[in-house]
Protein backbone atom coordinates (compact mmCIF):
# COMPACT_ATOMS: atom_id res chain seq x y z
CA UNK A 1 0.00 0.00 0.00
CA UNK A 2 2.84 2.41 0.85
CA UNK A 3 4.35 1.61 -2.55
CA UNK A 4 1.01 2.41 -4.21
CA UNK A 5 0.67 5.75 -2.40
CA UNK A 6 4.27 6.61 -3.27
CA UNK A 7 3.72 5.75 -6.95
CA UNK A 8 0.48 7.77 -7.15
CA UNK A 9 2.01 10.79 -5.41
CA UNK A 10 5.04 10.59 -7.70
CA UNK A 11 2.83 10.39 -10.77
CA UNK A 12 0.80 13.44 -9.76
CA UNK A 13 3.88 15.45 -8.81
CA UNK A 14 5.57 14.58 -12.10
CA UNK A 15 2.51 15.87 -13.93
CA UNK A 16 2.52 19.30 -12.28
CA UNK A 17 3.90 21.73 -14.90
CA UNK A 18 1.71 21.58 -17.92
CA UNK A 19 0.64 23.21 -21.14
CA UNK A 20 -2.39 21.97 -22.91
CA UNK A 21 -5.02 22.13 -25.61
CA UNK A 22 -8.30 20.44 -26.52
CA UNK A 23 -11.68 21.79 -27.57
CA UNK A 24 -11.57 24.79 -29.88
CA UNK A 25 -11.82 28.09 -28.02
CA UNK A 26 -11.47 31.55 -29.42
CA UNK A 27 -7.82 32.63 -29.26
CA UNK A 28 -8.07 36.02 -30.94
CA UNK A 29 -9.92 37.69 -33.78
CA UNK A 30 -9.56 40.37 -36.46
CA UNK A 31 -11.21 42.84 -35.93
CA UNK A 32 -10.29 42.16 -32.27
CA UNK A 33 -12.95 41.14 -29.76
CA UNK A 34 -14.78 44.22 -28.47
CA UNK A 35 -12.63 46.60 -30.55
CA UNK A 36 -13.65 49.80 -32.31
CA UNK A 37 -12.12 50.09 -35.78
CA UNK A 38 -12.15 53.25 -37.90
CA UNK A 39 -12.39 51.59 -41.31
CA UNK A 40 -14.88 48.88 -42.19
CA UNK A 41 -13.13 45.48 -42.47
CA UNK A 42 -13.66 43.36 -45.60
CA UNK A 43 -13.21 40.10 -43.68
CA UNK A 44 -13.67 38.73 -40.21
CA UNK A 45 -11.04 36.18 -39.12
CA UNK A 46 -11.09 34.18 -35.90
CA UNK A 47 -8.14 32.13 -34.64
CA UNK A 48 -9.03 29.15 -32.44
CA UNK A 49 -6.96 27.10 -30.01
CA UNK A 50 -7.50 23.93 -32.08
CA UNK A 51 -8.00 22.86 -35.68
CA UNK A 52 -11.60 22.96 -36.90
CA UNK A 53 -13.89 20.70 -38.93
CA UNK A 54 -14.97 22.80 -41.96
CA UNK A 55 -18.18 20.81 -42.50
CA UNK A 56 -19.81 21.91 -39.24
CA UNK A 57 -18.07 25.13 -38.12
CA UNK A 58 -19.95 28.36 -38.81
CA UNK A 59 -19.90 32.07 -38.06
CA UNK A 60 -22.66 34.65 -38.42
CA UNK A 61 -22.09 38.41 -38.33
CA UNK A 62 -25.17 40.57 -37.82
CA UNK A 63 -25.79 44.29 -37.57
CA UNK A 64 -27.74 46.02 -34.80
CA UNK A 65 -31.00 45.20 -36.60
CA UNK A 66 -30.12 41.51 -36.69
CA UNK A 67 -29.50 41.37 -40.46
CA UNK A 68 -26.66 39.12 -41.69
CA UNK A 69 -23.69 41.09 -43.05
CA UNK A 70 -21.39 38.17 -43.83
CA UNK A 71 -21.28 36.51 -47.25
CA UNK A 72 -22.28 33.03 -46.07
CA UNK A 73 -20.20 29.91 -45.61
CA UNK A 74 -16.86 30.75 -43.95
CA UNK A 75 -13.43 29.67 -45.20
CA UNK A 76 -11.74 27.36 -42.74
CA UNK A 77 -8.05 26.56 -42.77
CA UNK A 78 -6.59 24.66 -39.83
CA UNK A 79 -7.42 26.71 -36.76
CA UNK A 80 -8.64 29.85 -38.55
CA UNK A 81 -12.14 30.70 -39.72
CA UNK A 82 -12.70 33.66 -42.07
CA UNK A 83 -15.87 35.19 -43.41
CA UNK A 84 -16.08 37.81 -46.14
CA UNK A 85 -18.16 40.81 -45.06
CA UNK A 86 -20.49 43.06 -46.99
CA UNK A 87 -19.73 46.80 -47.01
CA UNK A 88 -20.22 47.76 -43.36
CA UNK A 89 -21.60 51.12 -42.35
CA UNK A 90 -20.67 52.63 -38.96
CA UNK A 91 -22.27 50.70 -36.10
CA UNK A 92 -21.84 47.76 -33.74
CA UNK A 93 -21.74 44.23 -35.18
CA UNK A 94 -22.47 41.00 -33.38
CA UNK A 95 -20.43 37.87 -34.13
CA UNK A 96 -21.77 34.41 -33.21
CA UNK A 97 -19.35 31.55 -33.88
CA UNK A 98 -19.96 27.81 -33.65
CA UNK A 99 -16.81 25.68 -33.79
CA UNK A 100 -16.50 21.91 -34.10
CA UNK A 101 -12.93 20.85 -33.38
CA UNK A 102 -11.28 17.88 -35.07
CA UNK A 103 -11.61 15.98 -31.77
CA UNK A 104 -15.41 16.25 -32.41
CA UNK A 105 -16.27 18.65 -29.58
CA UNK A 106 -18.45 21.70 -30.15
CA UNK A 107 -18.01 25.15 -28.65
CA UNK A 108 -19.74 28.44 -29.38
CA UNK A 109 -19.44 32.03 -28.39
CA UNK A 110 -20.28 35.64 -29.16
CA UNK A 111 -18.53 38.97 -29.30
CA UNK A 112 -19.03 42.37 -30.84
CA UNK A 113 -16.90 44.90 -32.72
CA UNK A 114 -17.73 48.44 -33.71
CA UNK A 115 -17.02 50.35 -36.93
CA UNK A 116 -16.67 54.03 -36.03
CA UNK A 117 -16.30 55.30 -39.59
CA UNK A 118 -14.07 58.16 -38.42
Amino acid at each position, binding site marked *: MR*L*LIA*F*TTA*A*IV*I*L*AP*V*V*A*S*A*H*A*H*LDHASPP*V*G*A*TVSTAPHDLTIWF*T*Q*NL*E*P*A*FSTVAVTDSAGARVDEGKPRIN*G*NTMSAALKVLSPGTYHV*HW*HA*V*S*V*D*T*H*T*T*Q*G*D*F*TFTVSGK
Partner: protein
Amino acid sequence: MPSLLIYARAVHFAATIMAAGIVFFAVCIFEPALRGAPSGALAATLRRRFAWSAWISLAFCVLSGASWFVLTATSMSGQPLSQIYSQDVLWTVLSQTDFGNDWFVRLVVACALGGTIVPLLSKNGPTSPSLKTIAAVLAAALVGSLAFAGHAIGAEGAEGIIHPVADVLHLIAAAAWAGSLVPLALLLATAGQDSTSLGMARTATLRFSTLGIVSVATLLVTGIVNTWYLAGSIDALTETDYGRLLVIKIVLFFAMVGVAAINRLRLTPRLVADENAKATQRARRALCRNATIETALGAAVLAIVAALGTLPPGNHLTQHAAAGAIPADASFQHIHGEHGMADVTIEPGHVGTVSAAVHLLNEDLDTLVARQLTLALTAPTPGSKPITRSAIVDADGTWHVGGIALTAPGNWTVAVDALLPSGKHLKLAAPIVIDPK
Protein backbone atom coordinates in the same frame (compact mmCIF):
# COMPACT_ATOMS: atom_id res chain seq x y z
CA MET B 1 -27.08 11.97 -24.78
CA PRO B 2 -23.63 12.28 -23.12
CA SER B 3 -24.40 9.27 -20.89
CA LEU B 4 -25.30 7.18 -23.96
CA LEU B 5 -22.03 8.26 -25.53
CA ILE B 6 -20.12 7.24 -22.39
CA TYR B 7 -21.72 3.76 -22.53
CA ALA B 8 -20.91 3.40 -26.24
CA ARG B 9 -17.32 4.53 -25.66
CA ALA B 10 -16.87 2.20 -22.64
CA VAL B 11 -18.11 -0.85 -24.56
CA HIS B 12 -16.04 0.10 -27.62
CA PHE B 13 -12.81 0.58 -25.65
CA ALA B 14 -13.32 -2.70 -23.79
CA ALA B 15 -14.30 -4.69 -26.91
CA THR B 16 -11.46 -3.26 -29.04
CA ILE B 17 -8.86 -3.89 -26.35
CA MET B 18 -10.18 -7.44 -25.85
CA ALA B 19 -10.17 -8.25 -29.58
CA ALA B 20 -6.68 -6.83 -30.08
CA GLY B 21 -5.42 -8.36 -26.82
CA ILE B 22 -6.57 -11.87 -27.78
CA VAL B 23 -4.72 -11.58 -31.09
CA PHE B 24 -1.57 -10.27 -29.35
CA PHE B 25 -1.84 -13.11 -26.83
CA ALA B 26 -2.26 -15.75 -29.54
CA VAL B 27 0.66 -14.43 -31.61
CA CYS B 28 3.15 -13.45 -28.88
CA ILE B 29 2.36 -15.88 -26.05
CA PHE B 30 0.14 -18.83 -26.88
CA GLU B 31 1.60 -20.09 -30.18
CA PRO B 32 5.25 -19.75 -29.00
CA ALA B 33 4.30 -21.53 -25.74
CA LEU B 34 2.99 -24.48 -27.77
CA ARG B 35 6.39 -25.04 -29.42
CA GLY B 36 7.79 -28.30 -28.15
CA ALA B 37 4.63 -29.04 -26.19
CA PRO B 38 2.38 -31.85 -27.35
CA SER B 39 -0.11 -29.93 -29.44
CA GLY B 40 -3.48 -31.58 -29.69
CA ALA B 41 -6.88 -31.55 -28.10
CA LEU B 42 -5.99 -28.97 -25.42
CA ALA B 43 -4.51 -26.53 -27.95
CA ALA B 44 -7.58 -26.95 -30.16
CA THR B 45 -9.91 -26.33 -27.19
CA LEU B 46 -8.06 -23.16 -26.20
CA ARG B 47 -7.96 -21.88 -29.80
CA ARG B 48 -11.72 -22.42 -30.05
CA ARG B 49 -12.31 -20.45 -26.81
CA PHE B 50 -9.96 -17.66 -27.92
CA ALA B 51 -11.72 -17.55 -31.30
CA TRP B 52 -15.16 -17.22 -29.69
CA SER B 53 -13.90 -14.50 -27.34
CA ALA B 54 -12.31 -12.66 -30.26
CA TRP B 55 -15.44 -12.89 -32.44
CA ILE B 56 -17.74 -11.68 -29.64
CA SER B 57 -15.32 -8.82 -28.89
CA LEU B 58 -15.12 -7.86 -32.55
CA ALA B 59 -18.93 -7.89 -32.89
CA PHE B 60 -19.28 -5.61 -29.85
CA CYS B 61 -16.46 -3.44 -31.24
CA VAL B 62 -18.34 -2.89 -34.53
CA LEU B 63 -21.79 -2.36 -32.93
CA SER B 64 -20.54 0.04 -30.23
CA GLY B 65 -18.39 1.80 -32.85
CA ALA B 66 -21.51 2.38 -34.96
CA SER B 67 -23.37 3.77 -31.91
CA TRP B 68 -20.43 6.05 -31.05
CA PHE B 69 -20.37 7.27 -34.67
CA VAL B 70 -24.11 8.09 -34.76
CA LEU B 71 -24.04 9.86 -31.37
CA THR B 72 -20.99 11.89 -32.38
CA ALA B 73 -22.66 12.83 -35.68
CA THR B 74 -25.64 14.25 -33.74
CA SER B 75 -23.35 16.23 -31.45
CA MET B 76 -21.15 17.58 -34.29
CA SER B 77 -24.08 18.56 -36.49
CA GLY B 78 -26.29 19.85 -33.69
CA GLN B 79 -29.18 17.88 -35.26
CA PRO B 80 -31.44 15.62 -33.20
CA LEU B 81 -31.05 11.87 -33.62
CA SER B 82 -34.26 11.65 -35.67
CA GLN B 83 -32.98 14.15 -38.26
CA ILE B 84 -29.48 12.93 -39.04
CA TYR B 85 -30.58 10.03 -41.24
CA SER B 86 -32.57 12.25 -43.59
CA GLN B 87 -30.08 15.09 -43.99
CA ASP B 88 -26.92 13.32 -45.18
CA VAL B 89 -25.33 14.15 -41.82
CA LEU B 90 -23.86 10.65 -41.41
CA TRP B 91 -22.31 10.75 -44.88
CA THR B 92 -20.92 14.27 -44.28
CA VAL B 93 -19.35 13.15 -40.98
CA LEU B 94 -17.96 9.98 -42.59
CA SER B 95 -16.54 11.65 -45.69
CA GLN B 96 -15.63 15.16 -44.57
CA THR B 97 -14.35 14.97 -40.99
CA ASP B 98 -11.18 13.52 -39.46
CA PHE B 99 -13.32 11.49 -37.05
CA GLY B 100 -15.38 9.99 -39.92
CA ASN B 101 -12.29 9.16 -41.98
CA ASP B 102 -10.75 7.47 -38.94
CA TRP B 103 -13.94 5.47 -38.37
CA PHE B 104 -14.07 4.33 -42.01
CA VAL B 105 -10.45 3.11 -41.88
CA ARG B 106 -11.13 1.38 -38.54
CA LEU B 107 -14.14 -0.44 -39.99
CA VAL B 108 -11.99 -1.75 -42.87
CA VAL B 109 -9.27 -2.79 -40.39
CA ALA B 110 -11.86 -4.55 -38.16
CA CYS B 111 -13.13 -6.54 -41.18
CA ALA B 112 -9.58 -7.45 -42.21
CA LEU B 113 -8.78 -8.49 -38.63
CA GLY B 114 -11.88 -10.69 -38.63
CA GLY B 115 -10.53 -12.30 -41.81
CA THR B 116 -7.21 -13.15 -40.13
CA ILE B 117 -8.82 -14.48 -36.92
CA VAL B 118 -10.35 -17.37 -38.89
CA PRO B 119 -7.04 -19.04 -39.82
CA LEU B 120 -5.12 -17.69 -36.78
CA LEU B 121 -7.42 -19.33 -34.26
CA SER B 122 -8.52 -22.31 -36.37
CA LYS B 123 -8.36 -25.79 -34.85
CA ASN B 124 -4.83 -26.46 -36.12
CA GLY B 125 -3.52 -22.94 -35.62
CA PRO B 126 -1.77 -20.61 -38.05
CA THR B 127 0.27 -22.29 -40.76
CA SER B 128 2.02 -19.19 -42.07
CA PRO B 129 4.35 -16.97 -39.98
CA SER B 130 3.35 -13.93 -42.06
CA LEU B 131 -0.29 -14.46 -41.03
CA LYS B 132 0.67 -13.90 -37.38
CA THR B 133 2.53 -10.70 -38.27
CA ILE B 134 -0.40 -9.42 -40.35
CA ALA B 135 -2.88 -10.22 -37.56
CA ALA B 136 -0.73 -8.44 -34.93
CA VAL B 137 -0.32 -5.36 -37.17
CA LEU B 138 -4.08 -5.20 -37.84
CA ALA B 139 -4.85 -5.58 -34.11
CA ALA B 140 -2.39 -2.76 -33.31
CA ALA B 141 -3.98 -0.60 -36.05
CA LEU B 142 -7.52 -1.23 -34.78
CA VAL B 143 -6.73 -0.25 -31.19
CA GLY B 144 -4.10 2.43 -31.95
CA SER B 145 -6.36 4.30 -34.39
CA LEU B 146 -8.74 5.02 -31.48
CA ALA B 147 -6.28 7.81 -30.64
CA PHE B 148 -7.48 9.75 -33.68
CA ALA B 149 -11.01 9.97 -32.26
CA GLY B 150 -10.00 11.68 -29.05
CA HIS B 151 -8.35 14.62 -27.37
CA ALA B 152 -4.91 13.75 -28.75
CA ILE B 153 -5.52 15.30 -32.15
CA GLY B 154 -6.06 18.85 -33.29
CA ALA B 155 -3.01 20.57 -31.88
CA GLU B 156 -0.26 22.14 -33.98
CA GLY B 157 3.55 21.98 -33.77
CA ALA B 158 5.41 19.42 -31.68
CA GLU B 159 2.33 18.60 -29.62
CA GLY B 160 0.47 17.74 -32.83
CA ILE B 161 2.99 14.89 -33.38
CA ILE B 162 4.06 13.83 -29.88
CA HIS B 163 0.59 13.62 -28.34
CA PRO B 164 -1.04 11.34 -30.99
CA VAL B 165 2.06 9.08 -31.11
CA ALA B 166 2.00 8.74 -27.29
CA ASP B 167 -1.73 8.00 -27.37
CA VAL B 168 -1.36 5.32 -30.09
CA LEU B 169 1.42 3.59 -28.08
CA HIS B 170 -0.66 3.94 -24.87
CA LEU B 171 -3.63 2.16 -26.46
CA ILE B 172 -1.52 -0.63 -28.00
CA ALA B 173 0.23 -1.22 -24.66
CA ALA B 174 -3.14 -1.25 -22.85
CA ALA B 175 -4.43 -3.90 -25.28
CA ALA B 176 -1.25 -5.98 -25.03
CA TRP B 177 -1.51 -6.06 -21.23
CA ALA B 178 -5.15 -5.70 -20.18
CA GLY B 179 -6.51 -7.39 -23.32
CA SER B 180 -4.26 -10.42 -22.78
CA LEU B 181 -5.47 -10.98 -19.21
CA VAL B 182 -8.69 -12.75 -20.24
CA PRO B 183 -6.99 -15.28 -22.56
CA LEU B 184 -4.32 -15.78 -19.86
CA ALA B 185 -7.01 -16.54 -17.27
CA LEU B 186 -8.68 -18.90 -19.77
CA LEU B 187 -5.38 -20.65 -20.40
CA LEU B 188 -4.52 -21.00 -16.70
CA ALA B 189 -8.01 -22.29 -15.92
CA THR B 190 -7.74 -24.93 -18.65
CA ALA B 191 -4.08 -25.89 -18.88
CA GLY B 192 -1.46 -26.87 -16.33
CA GLN B 193 -3.44 -29.37 -14.30
CA ASP B 194 -1.34 -32.23 -15.61
CA SER B 195 2.37 -32.47 -16.26
CA THR B 196 2.05 -32.42 -20.07
CA SER B 197 0.28 -29.06 -20.21
CA LEU B 198 2.08 -27.55 -17.19
CA GLY B 199 5.12 -26.70 -19.31
CA MET B 200 2.94 -24.79 -21.73
CA ALA B 201 1.23 -22.88 -18.88
CA ARG B 202 4.64 -22.00 -17.41
CA THR B 203 6.03 -20.75 -20.73
CA ALA B 204 2.88 -18.72 -21.40
CA THR B 205 3.00 -17.13 -17.92
CA LEU B 206 6.68 -16.21 -18.30
CA ARG B 207 6.11 -14.72 -21.75
CA PHE B 208 3.06 -12.78 -20.47
CA SER B 209 5.18 -11.49 -17.60
CA THR B 210 7.74 -10.04 -20.06
CA LEU B 211 4.98 -8.56 -22.23
CA GLY B 212 3.42 -7.06 -19.08
CA ILE B 213 6.64 -5.32 -18.01
CA VAL B 214 7.15 -3.77 -21.46
CA SER B 215 3.47 -2.73 -21.59
CA VAL B 216 3.41 -1.17 -18.10
CA ALA B 217 6.59 0.79 -18.84
CA THR B 218 5.04 2.05 -22.09
CA LEU B 219 1.76 2.93 -20.34
CA LEU B 220 3.62 4.86 -17.65
CA VAL B 221 5.72 6.95 -20.05
CA THR B 222 2.93 7.63 -22.55
CA GLY B 223 0.45 8.24 -19.73
CA ILE B 224 2.69 10.98 -18.35
CA VAL B 225 2.94 12.55 -21.85
CA ASN B 226 -0.86 12.45 -22.31
CA THR B 227 -1.53 13.91 -18.86
CA TRP B 228 1.10 16.58 -19.48
CA TYR B 229 -0.88 17.75 -22.48
CA LEU B 230 -4.40 17.33 -21.09
CA ALA B 231 -4.61 17.71 -17.32
CA GLY B 232 -3.76 21.39 -17.09
CA SER B 233 -2.38 21.79 -13.58
CA ILE B 234 -2.36 20.31 -10.08
CA ASP B 235 -5.38 22.52 -9.36
CA ALA B 236 -7.18 21.07 -12.37
CA LEU B 237 -6.41 17.54 -11.13
CA THR B 238 -8.21 18.23 -7.87
CA GLU B 239 -10.85 20.81 -8.80
CA THR B 240 -12.29 19.55 -12.09
CA ASP B 241 -14.30 16.40 -12.84
CA TYR B 242 -11.72 15.57 -15.53
CA GLY B 243 -8.82 15.88 -13.08
CA ARG B 244 -10.52 13.90 -10.31
CA LEU B 245 -11.43 11.06 -12.68
CA LEU B 246 -7.87 11.07 -13.99
CA VAL B 247 -6.52 10.69 -10.44
CA ILE B 248 -8.88 7.72 -9.85
CA LYS B 249 -7.69 6.20 -13.13
CA ILE B 250 -4.04 6.58 -12.04
CA VAL B 251 -4.81 4.97 -8.65
CA LEU B 252 -6.60 2.03 -10.35
CA PHE B 253 -3.69 1.65 -12.78
CA PHE B 254 -1.24 1.35 -9.91
CA ALA B 255 -3.57 -1.13 -8.18
CA MET B 256 -3.32 -3.24 -11.36
CA VAL B 257 0.47 -2.83 -11.29
CA GLY B 258 0.44 -3.94 -7.63
CA VAL B 259 -1.42 -7.17 -8.48
CA ALA B 260 0.89 -7.69 -11.48
CA ALA B 261 3.91 -7.28 -9.19
CA ILE B 262 2.58 -10.03 -6.88
CA ASN B 263 2.11 -12.27 -9.92
CA ARG B 264 5.60 -11.54 -11.21
CA LEU B 265 7.57 -11.64 -7.97
CA ARG B 266 5.73 -14.24 -5.91
CA LEU B 267 3.39 -16.47 -7.94
CA THR B 268 5.24 -16.92 -11.24
CA PRO B 269 8.44 -18.23 -9.51
CA ARG B 270 6.26 -20.74 -7.56
CA LEU B 271 4.56 -21.89 -10.77
CA VAL B 272 7.88 -22.30 -12.56
CA ALA B 273 9.72 -23.99 -9.67
CA ASP B 274 9.54 -27.78 -9.98
CA GLU B 275 9.60 -28.48 -6.24
CA ASN B 276 6.11 -29.12 -4.93
CA ALA B 277 3.15 -30.14 -7.09
CA LYS B 278 0.58 -28.75 -4.63
CA ALA B 279 2.36 -25.39 -4.38
CA THR B 280 2.56 -25.26 -8.18
CA GLN B 281 -1.19 -25.83 -8.53
CA ARG B 282 -1.95 -23.25 -5.82
CA ALA B 283 0.20 -20.72 -7.68
CA ARG B 284 -1.58 -21.54 -10.96
CA ARG B 285 -5.01 -21.00 -9.40
CA ALA B 286 -3.87 -17.78 -7.66
CA LEU B 287 -2.47 -16.46 -10.96
CA CYS B 288 -5.78 -17.25 -12.66
CA ARG B 289 -7.72 -15.42 -9.91
CA ASN B 290 -5.38 -12.41 -9.99
CA ALA B 291 -5.71 -12.15 -13.79
CA THR B 292 -9.48 -11.93 -13.26
CA ILE B 293 -9.04 -9.24 -10.57
CA GLU B 294 -6.75 -7.27 -12.89
CA THR B 295 -9.35 -7.59 -15.67
CA ALA B 296 -12.02 -6.12 -13.37
CA LEU B 297 -9.71 -3.23 -12.44
CA GLY B 298 -8.93 -2.76 -16.14
CA ALA B 299 -12.66 -2.59 -16.91
CA ALA B 300 -13.04 0.16 -14.29
CA VAL B 301 -10.14 2.05 -15.89
CA LEU B 302 -11.82 1.79 -19.32
CA ALA B 303 -15.14 3.08 -17.91
CA ILE B 304 -13.25 6.14 -16.64
CA VAL B 305 -11.48 6.55 -20.00
CA ALA B 306 -14.91 6.50 -21.68
CA ALA B 307 -16.14 9.33 -19.46
CA LEU B 308 -12.90 11.34 -19.74
CA GLY B 309 -13.25 11.61 -23.52
CA THR B 310 -16.59 13.39 -23.18
CA LEU B 311 -15.42 15.92 -20.57
CA PRO B 312 -13.47 19.11 -21.22
CA PRO B 313 -9.87 18.38 -20.17
CA GLY B 314 -8.57 20.11 -17.06
CA ASN B 315 -6.66 22.63 -19.12
CA HIS B 316 -10.00 24.26 -19.91
CA LEU B 317 -9.86 25.61 -16.37
CA THR B 318 -6.60 27.41 -16.96
CA GLN B 319 -7.71 28.74 -20.33
CA HIS B 320 -10.94 30.24 -19.10
CA ALA B 321 -10.27 30.78 -15.39
CA ALA B 322 -13.71 29.38 -14.68
CA ALA B 323 -14.34 28.07 -11.19
CA GLY B 324 -14.57 24.46 -12.37
CA ALA B 325 -15.12 22.27 -15.39
CA ILE B 326 -18.44 22.47 -17.18
CA PRO B 327 -20.76 19.67 -15.99
CA ALA B 328 -21.67 17.20 -18.75
CA ASP B 329 -25.38 18.09 -18.68
CA ALA B 330 -24.93 21.86 -18.46
CA SER B 331 -25.27 24.54 -21.14
CA PHE B 332 -22.32 26.89 -21.29
CA GLN B 333 -21.76 30.21 -23.02
CA HIS B 334 -18.63 32.34 -23.04
CA ILE B 335 -19.55 35.96 -23.86
CA HIS B 336 -16.94 38.52 -24.87
CA GLY B 337 -17.55 42.23 -24.39
CA GLU B 338 -15.48 45.39 -24.69
CA HIS B 339 -14.91 45.76 -20.95
CA GLY B 340 -15.08 42.16 -19.78
CA MET B 341 -16.28 38.61 -20.35
CA ALA B 342 -18.73 36.25 -18.71
CA ASP B 343 -18.74 32.46 -18.45
CA VAL B 344 -22.40 31.53 -18.05
CA THR B 345 -23.30 27.98 -17.01
CA ILE B 346 -26.90 26.78 -16.84
CA GLU B 347 -27.32 23.47 -15.08
CA PRO B 348 -28.98 21.26 -16.14
CA GLY B 349 -29.02 22.64 -19.68
CA HIS B 350 -32.50 21.40 -20.44
CA VAL B 351 -36.14 22.35 -19.86
CA GLY B 352 -37.14 22.33 -16.18
CA THR B 353 -35.95 24.06 -13.02
CA VAL B 354 -32.34 25.12 -13.45
CA SER B 355 -29.68 27.12 -11.69
CA ALA B 356 -27.29 29.56 -13.35
CA ALA B 357 -23.70 30.48 -12.50
CA VAL B 358 -21.93 33.53 -13.92
CA HIS B 359 -18.21 34.14 -13.65
CA LEU B 360 -17.06 37.59 -14.78
CA LEU B 361 -13.56 37.93 -16.22
CA ASN B 362 -11.37 40.77 -17.39
CA GLU B 363 -9.17 40.62 -20.53
CA ASP B 364 -6.37 39.00 -18.46
CA LEU B 365 -8.81 36.22 -17.52
CA ASP B 366 -8.77 37.30 -13.86
CA THR B 367 -12.03 37.45 -11.91
CA LEU B 368 -13.82 40.73 -12.48
CA VAL B 369 -15.37 42.12 -9.28
CA ALA B 370 -18.89 43.53 -9.49
CA ARG B 371 -21.15 45.16 -6.91
CA GLN B 372 -24.29 43.50 -8.13
CA LEU B 373 -25.37 41.33 -11.04
CA THR B 374 -28.69 40.76 -12.76
CA LEU B 375 -29.32 37.78 -15.01
CA ALA B 376 -32.07 37.77 -17.64
CA LEU B 377 -33.14 34.74 -19.67
CA THR B 378 -35.48 35.16 -22.64
CA ALA B 379 -37.26 32.20 -24.22
CA PRO B 380 -36.94 31.54 -27.98
CA THR B 381 -40.67 32.00 -28.56
CA PRO B 382 -41.49 35.43 -30.09
CA GLY B 383 -42.83 38.02 -27.67
CA SER B 384 -41.45 36.26 -24.58
CA LYS B 385 -40.72 38.42 -21.58
CA PRO B 386 -37.31 37.89 -19.96
CA ILE B 387 -37.01 36.05 -16.63
CA THR B 388 -34.95 38.55 -14.62
CA ARG B 389 -33.24 37.64 -11.32
CA SER B 390 -30.67 39.20 -9.00
CA ALA B 391 -27.66 36.94 -8.43
CA ILE B 392 -25.83 36.17 -5.19
CA VAL B 393 -22.03 36.08 -5.19
CA ASP B 394 -20.01 33.32 -3.49
CA ALA B 395 -16.52 33.44 -1.95
CA ASP B 396 -14.89 32.62 -5.33
CA GLY B 397 -16.54 35.59 -7.01
CA THR B 398 -19.00 33.44 -8.98
CA TRP B 399 -22.59 34.73 -9.14
CA HIS B 400 -25.47 32.28 -8.65
CA VAL B 401 -29.20 32.24 -9.38
CA GLY B 402 -31.28 29.17 -8.46
CA GLY B 403 -34.78 27.92 -9.13
CA ILE B 404 -35.24 29.32 -12.64
CA ALA B 405 -38.08 27.59 -14.53
CA LEU B 406 -37.21 27.14 -18.22
CA THR B 407 -40.31 26.09 -20.12
CA ALA B 408 -39.22 25.71 -23.76
CA PRO B 409 -36.23 24.18 -25.56
CA GLY B 410 -34.24 26.12 -28.17
CA ASN B 411 -31.99 29.14 -28.46
CA TRP B 412 -32.63 31.24 -25.36
CA THR B 413 -30.99 34.61 -24.89
CA VAL B 414 -28.95 35.12 -21.74
CA ALA B 415 -28.21 38.70 -20.69
CA VAL B 416 -25.88 39.73 -17.86
CA ASP B 417 -25.94 43.23 -16.37
CA ALA B 418 -23.14 43.75 -13.83
CA LEU B 419 -22.62 46.94 -11.84
CA LEU B 420 -18.86 47.45 -11.61
CA PRO B 421 -17.09 49.27 -8.72
CA SER B 422 -16.45 52.17 -11.13
CA GLY B 423 -20.22 52.69 -11.32
CA LYS B 424 -20.29 51.55 -14.97
CA HIS B 425 -22.51 48.70 -16.13
CA LEU B 426 -21.04 45.71 -17.95
CA LYS B 427 -23.81 44.44 -20.22
CA LEU B 428 -23.34 41.18 -22.11
CA ALA B 429 -25.83 39.08 -24.07
CA ALA B 430 -25.67 35.93 -26.17
CA PRO B 431 -27.75 32.95 -27.25
CA ILE B 432 -27.57 29.79 -25.14
CA VAL B 433 -28.98 26.41 -26.16
CA ILE B 434 -31.52 24.72 -23.86
CA ASP B 435 -32.24 21.08 -24.70
CA PRO B 436 -35.65 19.39 -24.45
CA LYS B 437 -36.21 17.53 -21.20
